[in-house]
C-alpha cells in the first residue's frame, strides 16, 4: 500500500525535523564523527545480507565504548527513538534493516579480543570481533571457537549471538548458544546487564538462552565469553555419490541412527554440484544425483574407526563412489565447493532467494522431491544444499529481481517451501532468523496466543519496545492481513489480475 505523494513529502519533512532533534541530543554524548546523518554516509547501512529489503536509517551512530553506547541508548529511550543494533551486516533475514525513524547503532568499534584463557578454555571478546578472528587468536593454544557460519570471515560474534548462528560443524559442536557462557550488554534504557556467567550457569531463569537468537530485540550485546575447544588432531572428509536423492536422504538418516555424529554432514543435489564445480573445480562427481560430504575429526584412531563405520553405512545405502580426503589440502578442496555454494549460485543467476527451514531428517528425500515439483509449478529453478545432518535446508531459488513476475513467483515458491516444511514437522527458520523476511511465515507457524506470549517476552525486556521494533514477531493485525491475502500453495486469489 503506497502513500499518496503529499503524505510522502510531509513524512520526509517530519523525518528531517526529527533527525535534527535526535542528532542534536546525540551530539551531547558522542563525538561528531561518530554520528552519520548524510545520505552518502548512511547508504552502506541501508540493508544487510538480505539485499531485497532496504531502508534509509534516520541516523547511524558508531559508539566506541560501553559508556558511549549506554549514553546513546539513554538518549534514544528518553526521546522514544527506535534503535537497530548492527554488526557486520551479513545477516540473511533483514534483522539489521534500518528503521526510517530510528538510529542504527553500528558496533564496529567494539573490535577487541579482551582475553584468551587457555586454562579455562574461554575467550572474552567484544561484540564486533569477527567469528574467525577468535579462532585465529586461540590457535596459539591449540584451541578454536567451533561455530562456523559460512560468513565467518566477516560476521561478528555479536551478530552470531543475535542470530544463534550455526555452520557446517554444528551437528557435532552445537550452535552459538551451546558455545557461549556469558553475554554482556545493555538494556533498551541503557542499563548494563549480564546474562550467563564465567561459570557454567547463572542463578535465576536462563535468560541467556532467550537472548541468544533474539535478533537484537531484547538487549544490545557488547561483550561475549565463548567456550574454546581443543583443535582435533586430525580431520578427514569423505564424498559419497548417490544415484538418487532418496538414497542420499536415507544415508543421512542411517548415519545418525547408527549413533555416528560426524563433524559435518552436508548434501548437495546434482545441479548445485555442477554449479559449485564450475566455480571452484573441486573434482566433484557430476554424474551423481546427490553428493554427501561427511567429515570425521578427533584423534587418528577415532577418525580411522569413524571413517570405516561411515563407509559401511554409505555403501549399505547404495553409494556408488566414495572418496576419502588424503590430506588437509584435499580436505579443504572437498569443502571448497560447499563453502562457496552461495556465491557460485550468484554467478549463474541475477538473483537468488535462500530459504532456511529445518525438517526431520527422515523427510529429506520427500522434501527434495516436493521442491522439484515446485520448480515446474512456479517455472523457476532451485538448487539445493543442506546441512543434512541437522535437517536444515538451504534451497536457493534462482530468479531475476528486475522481472516482477519472476519476483512474485519466487516469493510464492519460498512460501510454499516454508509451509511444506511446517507440514513435515519442521520450522520456517533453522539458523538465518526471522528478521523481516519470515514475519508472514510466523503467522502460519504460531497461534495468536503463542505470538502474544512472544510479544509479552519482548515487553518484559524492553517495555517501550524501542529495540529493533517490527522484527521477528508479527503483530496480530499483520497476521490478520496476511490471513486475508494468504496464498495457499501458490493459488493467488484472482490469478488473472496483473500484480506488481
Amino acid at each position, binding site marked *: 500500500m503506497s502513500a499518496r505523494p503529499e503524505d510522502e513529502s510531509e513524512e520526509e519533512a517530519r523525518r528531517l525535523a526529527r533527525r535534527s532533534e535526535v542528532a542534536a541530543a546525540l551530539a551531547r554524548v558522542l563525538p561528531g564523527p561518530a554520528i552519520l546523518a548524510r545520505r552518502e554516509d548512511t547508504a552502506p547501512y541501508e540493508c544487510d545480507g538480505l539485499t531485497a529489503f532496504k531502508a534509509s536509517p534516520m541516523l547511524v551512530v558508531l559508539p566506541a565504548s560501553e559508556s558511549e553506547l549506554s549514553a546513546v541508548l539513554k538518549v534514544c529511550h528518553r526521546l522514544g527513538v527506535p534503535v537497530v543494533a548492527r554488526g557486520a551486516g551479513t545477516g540473511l533475514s533483514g534483522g539489521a534493516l534500518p528503521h526510517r525513524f530510528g538510529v542504527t547503532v553500528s558496533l564496529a568499534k567494539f573490535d577487541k579480543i579482551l582475553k584468551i584463557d587457555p586454562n579455562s578454555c574461554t575467550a572474552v571478546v567484544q561484540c564486533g570481533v569477527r567469528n574467525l578472528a577468535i579462532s585465529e587468536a586461540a590457535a596459539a593454544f591449540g584451541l578454536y571457537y567451533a561455530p562456523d557460519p559460512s560468513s565467518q570471515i566477516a560476521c561478528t560474534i555479536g551478530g552470531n549471538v543475535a542470530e544463534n548462528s550455526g555452520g557446517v560443524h554444528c551437528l557435532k559442536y552445537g550452535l552459538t548458544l551451546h558455545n557461549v557462557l556469558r553475554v554482556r550488554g545493555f538494556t533498551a534504557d541503557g542499563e548494563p546487564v549480564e546474562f550467563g556467567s564465567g561459570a557454567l550457569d547463572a542463578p535465576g*531463569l536462563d535468560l541467556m538462552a532467550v537472548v541468544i537468537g533474539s535478533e537484537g530485540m531484547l538487549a544490545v550485546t557488547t561483550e561475549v565469553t565463548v567456550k574454546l575447544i581443543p583443535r582435533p588432531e586430525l580431520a578427514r572428509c569423505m564424498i559419497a555419490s548417490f544415484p538418487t536423492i532418496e538414497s542420499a536422504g536415507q544415508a543421512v538418516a542411517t548415519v545418525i541412527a547408527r549413533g555416528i555424529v560426524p563433524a559435518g554432514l552436508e548434501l548437495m543435489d546434482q545441479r548445485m554440484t555442477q554449479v559449485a564445480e564450475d566455480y571452484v573445480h573441486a573434482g566433484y562427481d557430476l554424474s551423481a544425483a546427490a553428493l554427501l560430504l561427511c567429515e570425521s575429526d578427533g584423534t587418528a584412531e577415532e577418525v580411522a574407526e569413524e571413517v570405516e563405520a561411515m563407509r559401511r553405512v554409505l555403501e549399505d545405502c547404495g553409494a556408488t563412489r566414495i572418496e576419502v580426503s588424503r590430506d588437509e589440502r584435499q580436505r579443504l578442496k572437498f569443502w571448497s565447493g560447499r563453502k562457496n555454494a552461495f556465491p557460485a549460485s550468484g554467478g549463474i543467476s541475477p538473483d537468488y532467494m535462500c530459504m532456511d527451514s529445518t525438517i526431520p531428517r527422515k523427510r529429506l528425500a520427500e522434501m527434495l522431491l516436493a521442491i522439484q515439483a515446485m520448480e515446474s509449478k512456479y517455472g523457476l529453478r532451485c538448487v539445493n544444499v543442506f546441512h543434512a545432518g541437522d535437517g536444515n535446508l538451504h534451497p536457493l531459488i534462482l530468479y531475476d529481481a528486475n522481472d516482477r513476475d519472476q519476483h512474485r513467483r519466487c516469493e510464492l515458491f519460498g512460501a510454499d517451501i516454508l509451509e511444506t516444511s511446517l507440514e513435515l514437522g519442521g520450522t520456517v527458520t533453522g539458523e538465518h532468523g526471522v528478521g523481516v523476511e519470515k514475519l508472514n511465515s510466523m503467522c502460519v507457524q504460531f497461534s495468536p496466543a503463542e505470538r502474544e506470549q512472544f510479544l509479552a517476552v519482548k515487553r518484559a525486556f524492553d517495555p517501550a519496545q524501542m529495540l529493533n521494533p517490527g522484527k521477528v514477531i508479527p503483530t496480530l493485525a499483520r497476521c490478520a492481513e496476511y490471513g486475508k491475502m494468504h496464498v495457499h500453495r501458490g493459488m493467488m486469489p484472482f490469478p488473472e489480475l496483473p500484480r506488481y
Partner: protein
Amino acid sequence: MSAAELSRAPAAEHLRERILEARARRATLDIRGGNTKSFYGEPPRGEALEMRELTGISSYEPSELVITARAGTPLAELEAVLAEKGQCLAFEPPRFAPGGTVGGMVAAGLAGPARSAAGPLRDYVLGVTLLNGRGELLTFGGQVMKNVAGYDVSRLMAGSWGILGVLCEVSLKVMASKVKTATLTFDWDEPRSLAELARWNALPLPLSASAWHEGRLRVRLSGAAAAVHGACRKLGGSMLDPGEAAAWWDGVRDHGHAFFRPSEVELSSGECLWRLSVPSATPPLAHAGLIEWGGAQRWWRTRTAAQEVRALAAAVGGHATLVRAADKSAGAFAPLAEPLMRIHRALKSAFDPDRVLNAARLYADL
C-alpha cells in the same frame, strides 16, 4: 507434538481447569511430578497440582535422536525406553530418589557428572507445550535440531522451576550411549587435581566426567574404543573396576554418597550442603568438599554463614546455591541484581500475571 492434540487429552484439560479455577480464587498451585526435588530450591507452597495423570511417550524415533514425552512420564520409564535402543540423556539428570518425572527434570534443569562434557539439560530441550498462568496451551520449539523461529521460550523453561508455566509435553534431543567407558583414579591433592584437569581440558581427550573428593581424583573417559584406550595410556593412573565405577558415578549423580546428605542432626546443628558454580580454572577455595565438572562445580558441607559463602563464590565470578539446610531464610538461590530482577519480575507477569504457578519457588517475590 502439538497443542491441538494435547488439548484433547482429558488430563491436560483438567490441568487447565485447575489453573483457571485457582486463578479466579487467587490461589497458588504447587506443580508436582514425583516430588523428588521438593528439597531443592525454595520450599513448595500452595495446593498440589498432580502431574502424574499426564503420562506417556508421544513419539520416539531413534533415527531422529528425538523423544517426545508428556510431563508426568516417569523419568525411569523414559531412560529405560532409550536404553533399549542404545540411547540416553547425555546430561545425566540427577534422580535423587525414585519416582521423578520428565517434566520435573526439565523444570529443575539440573545435570549430572557428564555436564562439563555434554552440556546442560537446556541444550537438549527442542520444544515444549505448556500451560501458562492464564490457562493457555502454547507450543514453542519443535522436534527439529535447529530452530530460530521466535524467541527460544522452550529453553527458558529449563531450570525455571515451574514459575512460568506447567510443562505438559517436552521434546528432547537424545544421544547414542558411548561405546566404551573407563574410570581412572589418581591419589592427588586438590591443587594438583585442579591443575591437571585444567591441562587435560585443553587437550582433545574424551573426558566425560571428573570428581575430586578426599584426596582422590576420578576421571571418566567415554567414547569410541580407540579414543578411550588411547586416553588411558596417555593419562596413567589406576583403572577402577567398571561396576564399582558405575556405582560411584551414580552416587555423585543422584547424591547417593553420604557426603551429599547431611543427617537430621547435622542439619539442625546448622550444617548445610552448598553448590558453588564457579569458572573451572578457579584455584582451591576455602573448603574443598567434592569437586566436579573439571573444577566448575564445587559442593561444600559447611556451617559458614550464607552471606560469607555467597561472597566467596561471587569473588571468583561464580554463585552459590543453598541446597540442603534446616534454615533457608538466606534464600536458596543467589540473589539477583538489577536489572536482572526487574526482567525476572516482568517475565513472571508475562507468563503468569496472578502468580498462580509455583509462586516463590525460585525467588520469594516471583
